[in-house]
């Protein structure tokens, strides 16, 4: 498997006037072409920061990230990004949102009519693939959260990016909608042959979608463990109940608890219980 993304000794320090926070420390990782890799970890582990560094929205304090063997030094059209929410343009219709990257290109370079036609064809294809054809003229705020994220994904996919970076894209959706989106994104992954880097706080989501799950740990943000997911590439919801799935989920969850540094304080709980009982007797 040839490397699409190569992360070498990546470090990121957020400096404010008061203190420095180490968001990433010595991160090394290779991500292959056409790989679906997911990142989980307790909050503050730097998973979103790492994703944003790959996207070029943040700059590293040390080390380097290479995409197609070229050092990342800013955002680029080869790396599309899907955000958790508020990234759609409410003043544009669904289809105009999806065609936004095309509009930027036309704005800069001009375009031949055949190019415009090809883009329109691809926009139409994405619309029907995403089940958005019937709302193509609607505005984003007329759609449900799930539909809005479909628009965001279609918009990211329009210029056929080699890499799709997803930052908790389904974090704001309800559980049922999220399941539908999982199968949709896996379907797209098989169809579009992109590399997907997916950040989430939901372990089940990470396992179900990923070929590898990268567990990150906080303070300082770093890679803790990388798990190979023992599931076939073709996934279905039933697999979530399989013994391998559950075993891996248990393993990752307990490792997150160990690394999060947030242990439940049994003494404190007992003291609170006693106090509550005392106050009732008064």
């Amino acid at each position, binding site marked *: 498997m040839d490397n699409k993304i190569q992360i070498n000794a990546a470090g990121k320090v957020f400096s404010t006037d008061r203190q420095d926070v180490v968001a990433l420390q010595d991160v090394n990782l290779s991500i292959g072409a056409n790989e679906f890799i997911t990142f989980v970890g307790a909050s503050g582990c730097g998973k979103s920061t790492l994703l944003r560094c790959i996207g070029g*929205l943040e700059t590293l304090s040390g080390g380097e990230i290479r995409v197609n063997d070229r050092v990342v030094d800013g*955002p680029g059209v080869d790396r599309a*990004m899907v*955000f958790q929410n508020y990234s759609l*343009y409410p003043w544009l219709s669904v289809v105009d949102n999806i065609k936004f990257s095309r509009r*930027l*290109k036309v704005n800069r370079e001009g375009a031949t009519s055949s190019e415009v036609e090809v883009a329109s064809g691809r926009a139409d294809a994405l619309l029907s693939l995403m089940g958005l054809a019937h709302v193509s003229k609607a505005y984003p*705020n007329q759609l449900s959260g799930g539909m809005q994220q479909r628009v*965001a994904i279609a918009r990211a996919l329009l210029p056929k990016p080699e890499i799709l*970076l997803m930052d908790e894209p389904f974090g704001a959706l309800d559980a049922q909608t999220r399941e539908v989106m999982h199968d949709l994104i896996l379907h797209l992954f098989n169809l579009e042959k992109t590399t997907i880097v997916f950040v989430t706080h939901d372990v089940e989501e990470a396992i179900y979608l990923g070929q590898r799950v990268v567990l990150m740990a906080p303070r300082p943000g770093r890679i803790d463990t990388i798990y190979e997911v023992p599931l076939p590439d073709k996934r279905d919801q039933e697999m979530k109940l399989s013994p391998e799935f559950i075993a891996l989920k248990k393993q990752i969850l307990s490792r997150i608890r160990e690394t999060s540094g947030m242990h439940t304080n049994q003494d404190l709980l007992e003291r609170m219980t006693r106090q509550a009982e005392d106050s009732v007797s008064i």
Partner: protein
Amino acid sequence: MSVNASYSGIRTQSFLRQLWRRLWTIRGYLSQKEFLLFAAVGMLVPFAAWWFLANSGIMDKVFLPSPMDVLLRIYHWFEDDDLVGDAWISIYRVTVGFLLSAVLAVPLGIMIGTYRPIQAIFEPLTDFIRYMPAVAFIPLVMLWVGIDEGSKIAIIWIGTFFQMVLMVAEDVRRVPMAQIEAAQTMGAGDEEIVSLVIFQSAKPALLDTLRITMGWAWTYLVVAEMVAANSGLGYAILKAQRFLQTDKIFAGIILIGLIGLIMDQLFRLAHRKSFPWLYKK
């Protein structure tokens, strides 16, 4: 029979109680008819009180003219005097002063809300000047600009520009970062982000800012006309005071209120027409 009557009595009572409860629910619901009813009460009661007080003889007409006197005065002002001319010159001053503010404040506000160094350069100074009362600049403006149209426009400009800059900057800062970053990952340059994302996204808020500052422009206009003018609605009010024409003072104030209300409604209409996505649900 008697059982029936008392039964319906209970029902009426509980209906009224339910209605009462519904009306006084925190952030409750009011049908359009109910809203109009309450609005009519809110408008008519003060008006009726004015009518009654003015016509009952409790108060001297010199201090409180009746609504009819005011209406007649407006009519005579229109027929025998130059009401249209007075209103026109006032509208002209407000519009020019306001537009001069907007033309400068919108681009500057966008830059302040977009680039930190520009914010650091301009915002503290603007914040400082904003707290200086525009009215206090009148003597200075008369010294510098003179007493013709320029001075009135300058007062309106001073009163609105600095507020507008800060409000525009705030509107621009409220554009979600995700909208900007999404454009960056789609290959947009800085110029494209400002014109195709930030400006577009902030537009509805900007129009609201303009609508609100338009109201302030009217306030400063009247002040300017009262101090340094010989035409306009503000000047007419001041002149009426000298001749103890209280009904004309009333008329002038009401006219200014009406013109302001019409302009406000025009802004709201423009908002609905320009930003259909905000009104489609």
